[in-house]
């Protein structure tokens, strides 16, 4: 692909075809038509249009960035050509769709789509407009490439933020509506769908200007963290974070508190699974089982539906915890000898068995079957019942605090080192005299316990449990978040959960295309940061020794440059 000797048109042609193909795919998938009335800037351009034009702009941009420095003319021409090819591919979709009954197969190849692609014009002028606009996209891309870096970055930032803000209109209005006078101010920028044109221009100027101004300042010199003396400011930062965490629910309102509850619930589970997978290296695909056991134990013990003498949340909690630890060990024993993917499938099976038993008509008198369990007790403090999501947030916060502390202490304990030894090489670890039975069981039991606690709060939060909530996807989500955060890293669990569990909630804007976007995000995230968003220092060292050395070198260079300028 990178052979410069071949014809100068080859690469733009390739890029144009790929971009056009992506646009065609997104059109046929239905995203373009679904979001045709969803304006980013009211009356000017809609999300649907962004969806089919963005691939062309992005592809042209990445092509031009990749290729070696060229003359100004060449850059503009290749941009133009990429746009042309992309436009022609899209136009072909319209022409074919108008003449062949594509809709029998591709349900979204409808007149609605064709009208959007031809900008509501008759066929021929419409197609010409389409191709012209695609070419403009290509030229825009070359324009950004040709501009000085600082200006280009400012523009890119401005545009991205406008897109994001326009997209999140409803969300922003919902949240800010609680903020009194500020709400009116925010409303001024927005139309009934998307931003007002004037508001968009104002915002763009603001963001791009700020960015331009900021990038003009010399980059702050990063000092290597000093481990011995921690200045007061170090603690102040953490205290500030703590206070912020405590204040979040009233600031953000109930909707964001609900998302935060979900995020924290997954952090709880993530920390637990991180011990099993990240520390001890045991791949567990059925982690939802313990979550289910925690939730169901809580349900069975506290619901008056199944129980003549229901307990309170706090009375039932120890039983739920014991149930989880015991089941963790029961799972742990048979899988002691299994490794890698055999372990994965057995744990997966365990998760399914638990769900199916909870669902079964057979055990219905005890677990409620498909009707689930309702009227589950909510935790009380004195006479105060924690029942809204904002109040339960504090319970999650408390749980996460305790569990994170335990996990953090465990990691650096003797047990933690044993786990890691087992993870690195089981045979050597056993040869060194490590009791692999106790070690593995401990990992399973701890992981199960944390997940079970999350389950009890989940049950209390919904006041009901249904077997359908205990599906395989929960296990997959927890596993994904610890890998996205960075395996074995505790802060990674926080970041991973925030990104992974927060984003689908925010992606609700995409309605039925939520999981499509989510899947694409997962792939992109892992391709760009395979070590995770906040990798464990030790792992990072193993994986990226060379890069780290390079980075250190760059840091040193920057520092010396900085000292030179100050001289």
């Amino acid at each position, binding site marked *: 692909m990178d052979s410069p000797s071949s014809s100068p048109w080859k690469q733009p042609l390739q890029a144009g075809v790929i971009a056009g193909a992506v646009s065609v795919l997104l059109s046929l998938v239905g995203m373009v038509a679904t979001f045709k009335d969803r304006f980013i800037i009211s009356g000017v351009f809609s999300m649907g249009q962004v969806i089919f034009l963005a691939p062309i702009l992005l592809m042209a941009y990445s092509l031009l960035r990749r290729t070696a420095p060229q003359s100004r003319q060449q850059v503009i021409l290749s941009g133009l050509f990429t746009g042309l090819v992309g436009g022609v591919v899209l136009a072909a979709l319209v022409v074919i769709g108008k003449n062949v009954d594509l809709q029998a197969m591709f349900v979204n190849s409808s007149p609605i789509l064709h009208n959007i692609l031809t900008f509501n014009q008759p066929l021929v002028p419409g197609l010409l407009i389409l191709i012209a606009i695609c070419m403009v996209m290509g030229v825009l891309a070359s324009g950004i490439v040709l501009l000085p870096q600082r200006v280009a970055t400012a523009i890119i930032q401005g545009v991205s933020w406008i897109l994001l803000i326009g997209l999140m209109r409803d969300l922003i209005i919902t949240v800010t509506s609680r903020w009194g006078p500020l709400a*009116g101010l925010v409303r*001024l920028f927005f139309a*009934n769908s998307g931003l007002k044109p004037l508001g968009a221009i104002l915002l763009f*100027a603001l963001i791009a200007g700020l960015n331009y101004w900021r990038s003009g300042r010399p980059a702050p010199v990063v000092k290597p963290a000093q481990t011995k003396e921690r200045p007061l400011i170090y603690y102040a930062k953490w205290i500030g974070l703590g206070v912020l965490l405590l204040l979040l629910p009233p600031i953000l*309102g109930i909707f964001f508190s609900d998302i935060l509850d979900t995020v924290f619930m997954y952090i709880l589970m993530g920390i637990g699974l991180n011990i099993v997978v990240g520390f001890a290296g045991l791949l567990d695909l059925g982690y939802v089982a313990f979550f289910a056991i925690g939730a169901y134990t809580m349900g069975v013990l506290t619901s008056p539906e199944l129980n003549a003498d229901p307990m309170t949340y706090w009375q039932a909690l120890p039983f739920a915890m014991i149930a989880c630890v015991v089941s963790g060990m029961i799972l742990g024993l048979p899988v002691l000898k299994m490794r890698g993917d055999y372990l994965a499938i057995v744990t997966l099976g365990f998760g399914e068995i638990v769900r199916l038993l909870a669902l079964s008509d057979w055990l219905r008198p005890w677990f409620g079957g498909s009707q689930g369990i*309702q009227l589950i007790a909510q935790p009380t403090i004195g006479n105060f019942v924690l029942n809204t999501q904002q109040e339960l947030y504090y319970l999650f916060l408390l749980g996460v605090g305790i569990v994170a502390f335990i996990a953090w202490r465990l990691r650096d304990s003797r047990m933690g080192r044993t786990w890691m030894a087992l993870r690195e090489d089981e045979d050597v670890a056993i040869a060194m005299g490590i009791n692999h039975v106790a070690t593995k069981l401990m990992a399973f039991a701890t992981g199960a316990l944390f997940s079970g606690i999350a389950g009890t709060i989940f049950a209390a939060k919904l006041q009901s449990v249904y077997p*359908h909530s205990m599906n395989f996807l929960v296990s997959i989500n927890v596993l994904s978040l610890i890998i996205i955060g960075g395996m074995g890293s505790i802060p990674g669990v926080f970041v991973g959960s925030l990104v992974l569990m927060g984003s689908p909630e925010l992606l*609700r804007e995409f309605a039925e295309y939520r999981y499509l976007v989510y899947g694409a995000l997962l792939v992109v995230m892992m391709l760009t940061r395979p070590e995770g968003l906040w990798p464990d220092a030790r792992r990072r060292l193993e994986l990226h020794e060379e890069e780290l050395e390079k980075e250190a070198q760059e840091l040193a260079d920057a520092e010396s440059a900085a000292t030179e300028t100050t001289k």
Partner: protein
Amino acid sequence: MNKRLLVLLSVLLAVSMLLPACGPAPYECTDAIGCVTVAPGEPIHLAYAMVISGPDETLGIDSRTGVEVAIALKGKLLGHDISLTGEDDGCSAEGGQAAGTKLAADPTIIAVFGTSCSSAARVAVPLLSQAGFVIISASNTAPDLTRAGDPNNHPGYLRTAHNDEVQGAAAAQFAYEKMGVRKAATIHDGSLYAESLQAVFAKTFQELGGEITTQEAVDPNATDFKSVLTSIAAGGPEFIYLPIFVKAGSLITRQAKEVPGLESVYLMGADGMFSPDVVEGAGEQVEGLFVSSPDLAAFSADYQTVFLPKYKELAGVDEPVSIFHAHAFDAANIIFAAIEKVAVQDEDGTLHIPRQALRDAVYATKDFAGLTGNLTCTPTGDCADPKIAVYEYHVGEYPPERIWP
């Protein structure tokens, strides 16, 4: 810094633009749970909480289209546009909570259409009820949601869907009286809907004097049902009631005839299987499959002439993908009528909608000429005109033929 000055100036400008908007308001809200004000040029904000992704999505997408048709046909309501936003209820309790919470946080919403599934309703409805909305569902059929005194019954919640108790009982009567069978088996798929329908069916059928040979359950995502059918065949039923959904339902229909002992058994589904997908999925074996459903013959003539064309245009499909679109359409129109009744309009077009008054107006709905019949809401929120009919499928034909009563 000049830029900072610019920021400050723009903020000031924005605030000064805001001030005139805060003029004196002649309308004073005296409603017990508050009012919604819709400024001129702003739309009336309605919302949905329905399942629009995952395996059950056709249920929600179908009802959502029903609401969209109602909005499209209505055009403007008291001079305002109607906007519909919404959330995915995921057909699950946690999905219901997320959707309910999100919608409850938006004070501009007047009414919510949903939820699609009863498990979602049990969690979402309390949240939405607390927020002062009217909630009206087109497809929740669980009996407890509208049972007086039940903890799952909340103020402001109504439904245009019929109660499971009506449909399950009708199916049992059809089997016992019309088809004259005495031995029946049931299959559910572990969903709330199917489980409670088959329970009602079994109870009624036994009360009529019939015998239930087996009550089996299947995994809705399984594909091979021959084994379970073979085991059902051992009980020798003449009739199998399977109030499940399209996917498993059509596969069971296909496979049942191939199982020895079930060659001449009658199969009957419920409204979850009233869908063109059944004709597509069950192929030739669809012949003779019964489904119970709201009685389309009792539907007003507008259903064929006005509603369906618009539905097909909006959804871009040949046939409705599920059965509750008409109920959703009626739900929307009940809301429109109630808004028209209680809204107070200022001279400049500003609307004030008192929430409790709106609820009262919806509960007071009487003899409302809807698509699904003449609707009258009970004090606990059952608005359906519960006429159940039984239909028989024929190969390649949709909708199926009405045969009972």
